[in-house]
């Protein structure tokens, strides 16, 4: 999953290329995680941030500052791997002035809130909604195979079935 709202594509490419290189070819965590930004460089065996936390008895969840620490203290709990590979990565694409907001200007702070909201909601939409979509689309053929073509008829789920126009009889042609 990649979230981008502007930013220099060359910077983004450079960042990813470097992290890919640091990862080493073909490496992944035992949990299957292979996104370079989620893996800990130089770890042997290769570990992702979440597994690393779990192995140390710590929470695998990070507190993400959607608007950046300097712009708003609100945090959202995010799975550490996603925090590193998706949301923090997206913040690198922000204009530096907005992210760091060194002068503390309210306009850039508000811009950062909006950016943070957009990115976090896109992340959640991707994580929750898209995952749900994928689940349903895979469930359908499974149910059809198990219960037949009209598996929902006569069940409580029938009320969710789309209503169709009744087929009308076609008059015979003269």
């Amino acid at each position, binding site marked *: 999953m990649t979230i981008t709202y502007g930013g*220099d*594509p*060359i*910077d983004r*490419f*450079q960042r990813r*290329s*470097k992290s890919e*290189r*640091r*990862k*080493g*070819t*073909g*490496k992944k965590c035992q949990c299957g995680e292979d996104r370079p930004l989620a893996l800990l*460089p*130089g770890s042997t065996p290769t570990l992702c941030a979440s597994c690393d936390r779990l192995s140390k008895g710590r929470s695998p969840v990070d507190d993400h500052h959607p608007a950046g620490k300097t712009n708003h203290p609100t945090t959202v709990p995010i799975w550490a791997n996603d925090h590193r590979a998706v949301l923090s990565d997206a913040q690198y694409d922000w204009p530096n002035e907005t992210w760091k907001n060194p002068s503390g200007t309210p306009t850039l702070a508000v811009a950062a809130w909006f950016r943070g909201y957009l990115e976090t909601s896109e992340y959640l939409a991707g994580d929750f909604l898209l995952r749900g979509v994928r689940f349903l689309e895979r469930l359908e053929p499974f149910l059809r195979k198990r219960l037949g073509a009209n598996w929902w008829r006569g069940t409580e789920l029938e009320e969710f079935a789309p209503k169709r126009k009744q087929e009308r009889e076609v008059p015979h042609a003269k």
Partner: protein
Amino acid sequence: MPNNPTPLALAVRVFPVHEPSNKSEHKNKKWRLPNAMFVFDTETRTDAAQRLTFGSYRFLVNGKLKQEALFYANDLPGKDRKTLEYYVADQRKRAQKSGEIPLLLLTKREFLKQFYKAVYKGRALLVGFNLPFDLSRIAFASRSARGRFAGGFSLAPWSYVKNGVERPDNHRPGVGIKHIDSKRALKGFTSRYRPDDTDLIPEDSVTGQPEKGYKFRGHMLDLRTLAFALTDRGYSLESACKAFGVEHGKRHVTKHGVVTFSYVDYNRRDVQATSELAVALLAEYAKHPINLQPTKAYSPASIGKAYLRAMGIVPILQRKPEFPLRYVGFAQTAFFGGRTSAHIRKVPVPVVSVDFLSMYPTVNGLMDLWKFVIAKEIRVVTGCQCKIEKFLRSLTPQALFNPLTWRKLRAFVKIVPDGDLLPSRAKYSSASNDFQVALNHIYAKDGPAADGVWYSLPDVAASVLLTGKVPKIVDAFKLVPAGKLANLKPVRFCGQVYVDPRTQDLFRTVIEQRKSKTNYSGMTKEGVVRLDKSLKVFASATSYGIYAEMNREESEKRVKIQCQGIGPEPYECSVLHPEVPGEFCFPPLASLITGAARLMLALLEHSVAKLSGTYAMEDTDSMAIVATETGGFVACKGGNLRTTQGKEAVRALTWKQVRQIVSMFETLNPYDRNIIPGSVLKIEDDNFDPKTGKQRQLHCLAISAKRYSLFLKSKNGSQVLLTEGKNNAKDRWSRHGLGHLLNPTDPEAPDRNWTRSVWEQIVRNPLGLP
């Protein structure tokens, strides 16, 4: 011996002894094509200095355009800068409506920052057409390169300003460029001061750990080089776009060097065409199942060698490092290139032009040399001079028309020449004072046998054929292949043609597959043309050159190297530019192949001479035989016959006699006759009118080796050069030795059509035309 033979020192090539390199191991490493491309092009002033005015780049990730920008030189006049600003503002307005990527306008410094991030830090593919030129335009300074690029340039694109003085930035890499020839150059980043840890991680690193001393050289793809490697043809951006079916090809602009909207459009279009051409060429390249970075495909031979590696073929000297190098040295001294001459000089004569079908693969096939390429080992059989002498004594032209005779030619002999007709390398002209190769009657100095010289047996056979005399042989050895390499595996050439090195002779198979229609079923017309060209290029690349490959190395001072030459022991010498044998270099094969090709031409010469005929010129695999439809005497200054008017003349064969000679070579066809029937000697298409298909009278004027023109004569006796698209399938005047010259009437014009006018004039003079 004649009364006064000219004493000349002969020069021979020697084999430089080097430790076997582990280059093949490096080449077996997998390489992934970067998913991002940085494509750029520059425009310059039109004066001699050609300083940068502006340029543009496109940055693409996974084939999608992510950024496009114009950049301009620091010293671009304000008026021109304004033009660029207006252009960009205009484009951005349009982009807002159309959803295009908005164009950026950057200074050269800002551009170099993007370039650095994308190409060096991010390791994107840097793409350009004639990349060295564009790289030199964005450089701030240059100097002579050292080390890997010694003999070339080291460019410094990045600079910094201190106390008002601009200096090269040592914290950024330089760009090293060393030209191999007009189409190819070695390119790469040079080292920089204090590289970051991520810059020290090798491309194929499994650990992701930095390695001290590693230098990232960059992924620099010059499309001119890649197009040449794929087709063995030189292209301009325009012709390459046409040849590879690029949708948005090159456009033209009325005036170069002046910054206008249309000139910026032209530049952006060039970058777009270049990026589309890159996609097309990389797609074409991906059809080859080989493990070779496209950035390192410098020539068809590079691709050919990668195929051999893919088939599991290990270079001969690597598979058996203890192979006695003295025999390699002997064979190297016997090495000469193709036989080429102007036999009738500066006198136009009527001819029939003939050439051999794929000469080098053909002689490879006849001598069955593929067995050496896949042999587990190659054995040297010594002390066979008596057998070879006996073979030569029984050698007749008829025997040479028997293909089995050619398998007995896989040997080298040391002879003491006494008027034998052999190739020799000497300073024939005191004016030019350089070494040239010529076919001459050679006499050894009186005295001990130390004057013996090594020749390939085909060369000696040619001498026997043309002089009727067997030379004095003092030593000889022959080569015998034994066993087969263990890990040979089949490949599908271009993903299309199946070749199994274990059971098929690659040299023969590739030529047969070219002619076979079965491979082309279901393919588009362009696909057929491309596959055919690829096969042709592959056949010529792997059938000779790679066994003779020597790479010149640059060094700042003389170095001592060991060489194997005529003598059995190596000797040491000190040279400034040592040569290093190429990966598949094996001089015994190279010498046998070119020797056999010369023998083939000698056999043709003998066949012509037997009918009292002669020829105007010969070049490696072709000959212009003096012939007319009815034959007879042709006036020719210097000829040894006389016309009825008493003029010096030569005898022209009849067209029928030429056809008879052609049919004699049918026995030497080593290919599957169902696919390639008939003779390996062909009457060239030039001899036939493209409209009627009837044979027409060609004339030839040769002025020196490789410099000749074929032409027709009009009714009023004036010359009509054979010209592509006009009266022939291709131009038939030589451009040899003219490549370095600009158009004398318009030095800016890129086309080479002016060479035609030069030849028109050259031909008119001897014809007595004004």
